[in-house]
C-alpha cells in the first residue's frame, strides 16, 4: 500500500498543478465570483465571506449586493473598481487564506469579512499589512478593537443589545421577557449579554433564558414551553431569521402568542421563499434595512437585485451595497487612484472615513458617520410586521 498512495498523491498534486496552471492561463474574471474587470486603472477591492457551507447565505448576499453597487459605481464613469469575492466557509483559517490569496491578486481595499469570527482573524492581518478594511456585517467589537484601519457598516452587537432593551422599556412592549439565543454563535451571545445587563438597569423583568446551538436548531418546543410557563408576554430573539422562522412556526403550533422582538438578523424572514408571512404578523425588530421600504433608493436596489438573482435582498445584501458606496465616496474624497499602494490608500481612507464632514446616505441608514474606533453611527429603525410587510413602529427613533 505504501507505494500505492504515493502515486495517488502525485496524481492529486498533478491535478492541483493543472488547476493552478489553468487559473493563471485563463481569464480570472469570467466566473461568478468576480465581476466587471476594467482593463485599466481599476481599484482592486477584495471581498471575503462564506459562499459555501451553513453560513453561505450571508456571504452570497453581501457579494451580490456589492456587485450591484460596483456596477452602478463603475457606470458613473469616474473611479473604477474591480471586485473579487472569495469564499471563507465562515472559518477563520479559510478566511485568512482567502485574504492572502486576495493579497496575491493585488487587493488594495478589503470589503470584509461578512461574519464575525473570521473577521477578527482577518482584521488582525489587514491591520498588520495596512490594508483599509470595511466590514459589511461582522458586528462584534473585537473586529474593530485596537485597529485604526477597520471600520464597520453594521451596528456593533452591544449597540443592538442596548438599543433593544431601551426600546422595549421605553415603549413598554412587555412586562415579562423571555430570551432565546444561540449560545454557539458570537453574534447572538454578544447581543444577549448586553441586553441582559441593560435590561437590569431598565427594570425589565427577564423570566426565562434558554439557548440552542446550530446543532440543535430544529426543535424549540422546550424553549417555548419554558417561556410560556414563565408567563412571558414578549420573547426577545437576538438570532438570525432561519431559527426565528422555526420558533414562530412552533409557537403557532402550540398556540402560544407572545410578542416577538428581533434584531437585524431577523430581517429576511418575510422574504424567505415559501414562508407563511402570517406567522410573522406582529413581530417587531430593530433593523437598519427593510426590503419593502418605499423609499426610492431601496425600491431601485430591490428591483435590480431581484432581476439579477431572482431573490429578495436581505440586510446583508444592503450592507454589501452600502460598503461599496462608502468606499467609493471615501476614495473620491481622499483622491485615491488605482496606482497607489494599499498602505497609502489605507492612511488616506482612514482620514476620509473619520473626517467630520464624511457622511453617507445608504440603504441601511441616512447620514451614516464613523468614529475613529471604526464604529458606525446610524439610527436603527423600529419595525413591526403588519400584513406581511414592515411598518415603522410608532415612537421609534
Amino acid at each position, binding site marked *: 500500500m505504501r507505494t500505492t498512495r504515493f502515486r495517488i498523491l502525485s496524481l492529486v498534486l498533478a491535478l492541483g498543478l493543472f488547476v493552478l496552471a489553468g487559473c493563471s492561463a485563463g481569464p480570472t474574471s469570467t466566473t461568478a465570483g468576480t465581476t466587471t474587470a476594467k482593463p485599466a486603472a481599476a481599484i482592486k477591492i477584495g471581498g471575503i465571506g462564506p459562499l459555501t457551507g451553513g453560513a453561505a447565505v450571508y456571504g452570497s448576499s453581501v457579494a451580490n449586493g456589492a456587485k450591484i453597487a460596483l456596477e452602478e459605481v463603475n457606470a458613473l464613469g469616474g473611479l473604477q473598481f474591480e471586485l473579487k469575492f472569495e469564499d471563507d466557509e465562515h472559518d477563520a483559517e479559510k478566511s485568512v487564506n482567502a485574504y492572502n490569496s486576495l493579497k496575491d491578486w493585488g487587493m488594495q481595499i478589503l470589503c470584509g469579512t461578512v461574519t464575525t469570527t473570521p473577521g477578527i482573524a482577518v482584521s488582525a492581518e489587514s491591520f498588520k499589512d495596512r490594508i483599509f478594511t470595511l466590514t459589511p456585517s461582522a458586528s462584534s467589537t473585537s473586529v474593530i478593537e485596537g485597529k485604526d484601519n477597520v471600520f464597520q457598516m453594521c451596528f456593533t452587537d452591544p449597540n443592538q443589545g442596548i438599543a433593544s432593551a431601551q426600546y422595549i422599556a421605553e415603549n413598554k412592549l412587555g412586562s415579562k421577557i423571555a430570551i432565546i439565543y444561540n449560545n454557539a454563535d458570537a453574534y447572538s451571545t454578544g447581543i444577549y449579554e448586553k441586553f441582559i445587563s441593560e435590561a437590569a438597569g431598565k427594570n425589565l423583568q427577564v423570566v426565562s433564558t434558554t439557548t440552542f446551538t446550530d446543532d440543535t436548531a430544529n426543535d424549540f418546543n422546550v424553549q417555548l414551553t419554558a417561556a410560556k410557563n414563565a408567563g412571558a408576554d414578549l420573547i426577545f430573539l437576538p438570532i438570525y431569521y432561519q431559527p426565528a422562522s422555526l420558533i414562530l412556526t412552533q409557537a403557532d*403550533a402550540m398556540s402560544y402568542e407572545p410578542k416577538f422582538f428581533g434584531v437585524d438578523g431577523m430581517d429576511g424572514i418575510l422574504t424567505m421563499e415559501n414562508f407563511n408571512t402570517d406567522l410573522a404578523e406582529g413581530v417587531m425588530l430593530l433593523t437598519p434595512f427593510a426590503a419593502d421600504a418605499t423609499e426610492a433608493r431601496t425600491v431601485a436596489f430591490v428591483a435590480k437585485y431581484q432581476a439579477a438573482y431572482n431573490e429578495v435582498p436581505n440586510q446583508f445584501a444592503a450592507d454589501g451595497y452600502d460598503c461599496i458606496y462608502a468606499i467609493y465616496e471615501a476614495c473620491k474624497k481622499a483622491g485615491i487612484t488605482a496606482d497607489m499602494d494599499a498602505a497609502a490608500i489605507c492612511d488616506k481612507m482612514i482620514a476620509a472615513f473619520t473626517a467630520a464632514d464624511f457622511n453617507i446616505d445608504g440603504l441601511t441608514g441616512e447620514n451614516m458617520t464613523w468614529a475613529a474606533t471604526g464604529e458606525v453611527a446610524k439610527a436603527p429603525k423600529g419595525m413591526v410586521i403588519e400584513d406581511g410587510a414592515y411598518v415603522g413602529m410608532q415612537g421609534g427613533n
Partner: protein
Amino acid sequence: MTFLSYLVSGLSLGSIYAIIALGYTMVYGIAKMLNFAHGDVIMIGGYMSFVATAHLGWPPLASVLLAMLVCTVLGVVIEQLAYKPLRAAPSLAVLITAIGVSYFLQNAALLIWSSNPKSFTSVVRLPSLKLFDGQLTISSVALVTILACVAIIIGLTFIISKTKIGKAMRAVSEDKAAAQLMGINVNQTISVTFAIGSALAAIAGVLLCSAYPILMPTTGAMPGIKAFTAAVFGGIGSIPGAFWGGLLLGLIEIFGKAYISTQLSDAIVFSILILVLLVRPTGLMGRKISEKV
C-alpha cells in the same frame, strides 16, 4: 402537562432520527459500510418535495412520492458509481468516498437551489390536536411522524422476515460468500437495500422539513450525524435497535434540554451515549461480537 408535551416532541424528533437511522443501519448491516452521505440524501428528498409543492403546485402526497422516487434512484446511482467499485477495498476507503459523496451532494444542492434557506410547507395540513381543554397541543406533523415511523418499522420487519428479498438481505448480512454460493445475487441485494434506505431517507427528509420547516443545503448534515449516533446507540446493523435508538435519542435530547440545560444539551446526549456503550459495548440491541479462536 408540560411533561406530556415534551414527551410528544421527543417522540416526534426521535421518530425522525429512527427513520434516518434505519437507512444507516440497513446499509451497514448488508454492505458493512457507514454511508455518511445518507444525511444528504435526506436533504435532497426535502428539496424534491419542496420543488414539487412550492414550484410545481403538486399535492403534498405526490411530492412525497416524487421525493421517494428521486432519492431511490439517487441512492442506487451513488451505490453503483461510488461504492460498488470499492466492495473489496478497505472499509476506511469506502468511508472517505462516502464523505466525498456527502460533500458533492451538499455543494451540488448549493449550486442548484442557492444558499438562501427555503421555508418548507408541511405536507401534513391538518389542524393540531388539542387535549385537556387546550392545555396540551399536539401538532399533526408530530402525530403523523410518529405513526409513519411505527408503520415503517412494521413494514420493514415484514419485508425482512417474510419476503424473498428480505431473506436474501438477511443472508447477505450474515455471510456474503455463503449467500453467493446459495445463488443469491449479492450485488442486486445490496442495490435493493440502498434503494429502500434512500426511499426511507426521502420520507425522513419530508417529515424533518415538515416538523422543522427550514431547508438549506446543510439541512441533512446534523440529523445525519445524530441518526448515525442513534443507530450505534441501538446497535448498528439491528433494525429494532435503530428504532429504539432513534426514539431514545430524541427523548434524551428533548428531556435533557427541558430538565437539565439547554446550553449543554448536545453534551448531555453524547455523554449518555458513551455511558450506554460502556455498559452495553455493542449498543442496546447489538449482537455480541464473539471471536472464533
